[in-house]
């Protein structure tokens, strides 16, 4: 079984640091006149998405293309899954076709781990249910580091993660990664949208956004993932927005240097207003741009000669 990236907890501290360093090398590659290197020529990378995606999928496919790998795209609606083919058979078919790595997204938590136990090739988790989305956390960490010029650490940076934490895989990966890098993370939302038992999480908790805003450097907004729940967890969307949406007035309450982030897709008018999302303090587009370089780093790390190991040959 090859080395995969399923969860932030799969990564050691020195490996995180290596991925940050690699990401910056690929940012430089992406700034060139011809932003493409032949490093993974001859490798085939398959994207296996059982859930819709714009950013993550395009970002992985662009990352693979810029490393000169070939890309196989699986689309659920036109696949044999609709004829009843199982997840295992689908994954094994992609491996048999000759894919060297699978980037997978699925609506069930743990599914990527399960598939990786069946296959001999590496898997990269592009989001499994409400569990994890490790490449999103990596790109967020590098984006914050580069903005505040904190090198390869986030010591002393205060991050507020706001909104539907309960259903957010982005929050689960980010809480782990950002706190390991030294950031102070506060989760903000109504009690019904926060996980029940947070005693083991390295975070502070607040139910009031206004209380948290003056002390934070990063305001990280989350979308309400209404596709993941049917029960009523809040009185209404309007009620949620009145208390937790980031708008221009609330942005004024934050410290002068604070930045706005969002993993996308944004539902403008619900968790964030257009003015806040497009303000000069918003790094939302930088996140998307950095995503390509960070994913190039992950693909290079898992598929290059070191194959997810770190021992130095030199």
């Amino acid at each position: 079984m090859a080395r995969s990236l399923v969860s932030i907890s799969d990564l050691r501290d020195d490996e995180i640091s290596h991925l940050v360093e690699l990401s910056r090398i690929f940012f430089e590659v992406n700034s060139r006149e011809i932003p493409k290197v032949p490093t993974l020529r001859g490798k085939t990378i398959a994207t296996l998405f059982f859930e819709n995606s714009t950013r993550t999928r395009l970002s992985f496919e662009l990352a693979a293309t810029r490393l000169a790998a070939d890309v196989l795209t699986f689309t659920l609606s036109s696949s044999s899954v609709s004829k009843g083919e199982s997840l295992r058979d689908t994954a094994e078919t992609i491996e048999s076709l000759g894919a060297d790595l699978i980037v997978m997204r699925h609506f069930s938590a743990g599914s990527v781990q399960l598939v990786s136990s069946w296959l001999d090739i590496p898997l990269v988790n592009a989001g499994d249910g409400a569990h994890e989305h490790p490449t999103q956390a990596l790109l967020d960490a590098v984006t914050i580091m580069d903005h505040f010029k904190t090198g390869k650490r986030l010591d002393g940076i205060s991050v507020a993660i706001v909104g539907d934490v309960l259903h957010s895989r982005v929050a689960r990966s980010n809480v782990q990664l950002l706190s390991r890098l030294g950031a102070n993370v506060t989760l903000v939302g109504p009690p019904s949208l926060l996980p029940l038992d947070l005693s083991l999480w390295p975070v502070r908790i607040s139910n009031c956004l206004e209380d948290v805003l003056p002390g934070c450097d990063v305001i990280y907004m989350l979308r309400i993932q209404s596709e993941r729940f049917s029960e009523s967890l809040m009185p209404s969307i309007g009620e949620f927005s009145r208390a937790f949406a980031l708008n221009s007035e609330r942005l004024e309450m934050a410290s002068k240097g604070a930045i706005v982030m969002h993993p996308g897709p944004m539902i403008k008018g619900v968790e964030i207003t257009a003015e806040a999302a497009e303000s000069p303090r918003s790094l939302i587009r930088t996140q998307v741009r950095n995503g390509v370089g960070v994913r190039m780093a992950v693909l290079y790390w898992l598929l290059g000669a070191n194959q997810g190991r770190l021992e130095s040959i030199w």
Partner: protein
Amino acid sequence: MLPENGLNSGHSYSTASEVMASADVKRVLSRIAHEVVEHNRGCTELVIVGLQTGGVWMAEELCSYLVEIATFPCVLGSLDISLYRDDHAFRPFIRSSSTDVPVSVQDKTVLLVDDVLFTGRTVRAALEAILDFGRPNAIQLAVMVDRGHRELPIRPDYVGKNLPTSRSEIVEVSQEGVRILKGVGNGS
């Protein structure tokens, strides 16, 4: 497979012999600088690119000589070709961020600089890499030591010293001089 130059921790070497001293290295760099000027009459701008890691100090020194004597402007850069190697299985690690080509190379003359020319595979990768920064008018190659054993049709334009070696030897180049380390096989 041995790296082209530098020490490999997995091997031990019985003897080392010095073939160039520090003063020789300086004299050679100064001579190469004059040759570069002679060969590039009418050049509008020269981009001097040191290959990571052994070519970087050499490019810096060459540039400082050239700034004194050249009639054309010289720009200094560096290039890490790890991502372009055809044998990157043996060199999977790019060191810290180290590619810095500060200007476009479009329609300019590029001088690639490396310490040791061996199989030619590094230079092949460097040619591919530099073309991603634009289309230069010409690319030239300067090396301190040409040790033979070419596996590709590549020849240097400026050579510090032609040094016949066996494949098992290691050639070590620095500002302090050039040494040959005689291999006694794998130390492990």
